[in-house]
């Protein structure tokens, strides 16, 4: 568990906000003053969560690296426009969201596995197990995630991998909170359906 915590931005949402908000604001202000070491520090602090988000959202390592570069370049150029109304991590993830979906649109030709078929599975088939997803292997979950639409995958990632609150996610992806909530419920259901369809059995 200790390993897990060090891998993530530490602490729960509220702790994180109180502890890190200030130092991150200062850091970004230094980036706005064109201090290159401050950018290196931003990269050091955000590269793992950002890369994880981009990698799982985009599904390709090279593409995720390219988009991460674009995001850091924008952070460098636009740091002075950060208003301080939200958290720094929310602001940076908002940029990452924007760039990632731009990349996805560029790449629109690639084959997203159609999920409708998976969702047609009768409800009974989805009900018998408890903690169904829990029992799937890592590879199976990755394969299942790949079947989701980017929007669903993204909200699962932001909520459960990056530990953002509903409100923060709503700000990052620029949709109402109600949409985030329903998207998360739907995403869980879709993930389960995808796991079932990919051959996972009770």
């Amino acid at each position, binding site marked *: 568990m200790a*390993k*897990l915590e060090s*891998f*993530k931005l530490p602490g*729960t*949402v*509220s702790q994180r906000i109180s502890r890190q908000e200030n130092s991150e604001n200062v850091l970004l202000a230094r980036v706005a003053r064109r201090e*290159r070491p401050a950018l*290196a520090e931003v*990269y050091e602090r955000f*590269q*793992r969560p950002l*890369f*994880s988000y981009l*990698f*799982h959202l985009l599904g390709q*390592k090279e593409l*995720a*690296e390219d988009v*991460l*570069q674009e995001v*850091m*370049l924008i952070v*460098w*150029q636009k740091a002075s426009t950060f208003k301080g109304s939200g958290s720094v991590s929310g602001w940076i993830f908002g940029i990452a969201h924007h760039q990632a979906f731009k990349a996805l649109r560029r790449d629109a030709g690639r084959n997203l596995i159609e999920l409708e078929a998976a969702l047609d599975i009768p*409800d009974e088939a*989805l*009900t018998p197990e*408890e*903690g*169904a*997803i*829990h*029992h*799937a292997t*890592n590879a199976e*979950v*990755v394969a299942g*995630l790949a079947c989701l639409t980017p929007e669903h995958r993204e909200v*699962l*990632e932001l*909520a*459960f*991998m990056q*530990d*953002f*609150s*509903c409100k923060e996610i709503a700000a990052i992806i620029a949709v109402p909170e109600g949409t985030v*909530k*329903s998207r*998360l*419920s739907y995403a*869980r*259901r879709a*993930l*389960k359906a995808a796991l079932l369809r990919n051959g996972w059995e009770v």
Partner: protein
Amino acid sequence: MHDKTFMSPSRSACPIEQLGWYANQALSVEEHAEVEAHLAQCAACRRDVAEWSGVREALDIVHMSTPQPRADLFSLIEQQIAKSESRSIAQQVLHIASLRAMIVCEHFWAQLRLIRRDLWWMPLILLPLTALLAATPYHWQSRAGILAFTGALITALSMAFLYGQEADPAREMTLVTPTSPRVILCTRGCVVFGYNLLINLTGILPIMLTHSAITPMWLLANWLAPLCCLAAIALLISTLINAATAVFTCALLWVLRALSDPQMIHITFLPQQYEDFWHQGPLLLAIAAIAVSLTFICLERRERFNV
């Protein structure tokens, strides 16, 4: 999960939407306590939370197995920054200028398609007139004079009808997009006026080339200045009042001019000073400039009242 229970009225009071966030410890202290109190008495929600926790654990493992980005990624970022900042000022200016030019071109292209068709063929009347005059034995000066006289009137008519009917596409464009009505007036005016100038020039140019006596100064005072002045007046009146009034005013000015010109009719009804006034190049151009400025100043006010 259990969609039958999910839909049943017994769960309508459950905080279903909160459960995922509860499992993720992303609720506020009060919300967390509320959900906790509910969970103590609701088995269905407890199952739900367990499942959400399962999702969380599964995704945690996926998250932890994320590969590392390439080690030299930050140096690549630094290279890109250096590249973007080494762009010289001249290159940046050129880049901005090309972007602006693209915007201007797009505005012109949009207006070219929206301008009413009549404005394109109306000035073409000048071309057969030129041919007709070439066949007459008139002195070159009166031929050029007639062309200048007609050309100015036609240009003024075009400017008076710059906008179409009430439901003009340009007008709708200003209403539905943040396009300034001044930008539209400017592009549209440039297109129509430029087109008329071109047609006028094709009529005047042959005479000018065959008679070296026509100097640029002569052209300015007798052709360009009256044309600009009358067109500007037409534009101003059509903007302030309406196209019909503009047409009427311009026609009146030109009839009076014809009546006071001893070359056109042998007995003049009006003092010749009036005709002479229409040959004072700098003064006419100044009036034209004032009229165009007034048009642009009054345009916004009129647009506001109309909307």
